């Protein structure tokens, strides 16, 4: 039986996590191939809608990567991102999506190793969870009260 390979969308800030991914590439590190990276200037640029679009277009998990607290190039973009992330995760959980499908990590430019571990680990979690939507209850079939013609 073929196994499920999740699609991960990574939303990475230009100054830290993206550079870590770059470093991982230059150092020819091997890690899970499930990741597709979108570069943003700062994790503070990440609107919750970006995460929704990722899922809408086929992602099974979304990984947000920013600078460590205190290190954001734009002072507090990562804090804003953290606040939005926590509220978004609560919303997703409320509508039945497994909160483990969204993940936020602070990864600095030099932490290629951490990036590798995070991606591998996230991919493994998602493999266990299955395709996006698996956790949602199935849509009920319309079977109550089929339409009746009026009797005259």
């Amino acid at each position, binding site marked *: 039986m073929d196994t499920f390979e999740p699609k991960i969308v990574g939303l990475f800030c230009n100054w830290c996590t993206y550079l870590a991914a770059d470093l991982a590439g230059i150092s020819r590190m091997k890690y899970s191939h499930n990741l597709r990276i979108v570069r943003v200037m700062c994790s503070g640029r990440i*609107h919750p809608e970006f995460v929704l679009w990722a899922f809408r277009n086929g992602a099974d998990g979304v990984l947000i990567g920013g600078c460590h607290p205190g290190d954001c190039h734009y002072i507090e973009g990562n804090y804003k991102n953290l606040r939005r992330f926590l509220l978004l995760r609560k919303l997703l959980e409320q509508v039945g999506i497994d909160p483990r499908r969204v993940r936020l990590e602070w990864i600095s430019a030099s932490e290629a190793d951490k990036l590798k571990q995070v991606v591998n680990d996230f991919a493994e979690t998602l493999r266990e969870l299955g395709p996006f939507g698996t956790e949602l209850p199935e849509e009920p079939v319309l079977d109550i009260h089929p339409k009746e013609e009026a009797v005259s």
Partner: protein
Amino acid sequence: MKKKVAFYWCASCGGCEEAVVDLAEFLLDALEQIEIVFWPVAMDFKIEDVEQLTDGEIFASFINGAVLLSDQEEVVRLLRRKSQVVVAFGSCSHQGGVPGLINTHDRQDVFDYYYHNGPTVQRNGNEMPTPTGAKAFHVALPEYYGKARPLNQVIEVDYYIPGCAPPPNVVKDALLQLLSDSPPPRGTVLAGAHSLCSECPLNETKPPEGFKIKQFVRPSQVTHIDPDTCLLMQGLPCLGPVTRSGCNALCIKGHMPCTGCFGPLDGVRDFGAAALSFLASLIDSNDEAEIQRIIDEGLPDPLGTFYMYSFPGSLLNEVLQKGRQKARAWREREETVEAQTTENQ
């Protein structure tokens, strides 16, 4: 010749009908220009009267409520054929509205609640509303879809009048625009173009930037609301900054935070995500545990807070639908593979 107009209601509370009546004298003046050919809530026309009209004979149909039942779907399709212009009237028709929150529940659960378990339900034994039972009274029961849809998911919509319910000034302006010689481009939401804060009398009490919120409070939790200070600054989750203007800050003037009934500004796909984003950014903490506590205590119901009027038409809802499809497709694939493997053995 007078222009023919029709009004119809789907899954709604009746407030939007009230909104038409609230036009008062203006409605009487308007009757010089328009002729009402269908308005079930107020006038005795039948579906057959609409069926007898030629296609496109109605100038405009104003349809409120979400589409939840099969008869509603039938009537709105009929009105679409007979009308030059279809206007989605009010939040439910525009985006799904409050009845649209039903979409987050299981269809059978909703049914059981209303006919069995609800605290106000009193039944005689096992008596249930059934098509056969209904037949005895010469009525037909429409099918309950279990999912509410905004009007534009059922038929093509030309204009939107937002609001829960649309206040008289907005309805009046919209009617005048539609009846004018140069109506706005199709697809227009007939209300303000800026955010509600731009017309809120409390806006000037708000610093241009840099204020933060340490604790969110619900109106029912506070004994005193300062009527002269922006409600958001008082910790009330006012959605004015991301909500379309037009109502002249009705709720704010009643000391209640805006819950976003006018929906998003042009160009915003998901109202809830926009509301969630701006509100979360204002939280006054950089510490994960503390932020989580502020959220859990002050915003315990993000879906109800941010998607109160917009869930069925939202990107979030689309995400869930896509997810279900994807999971179903995967399950089916696995079953086929399994069946093949057993066959080969």
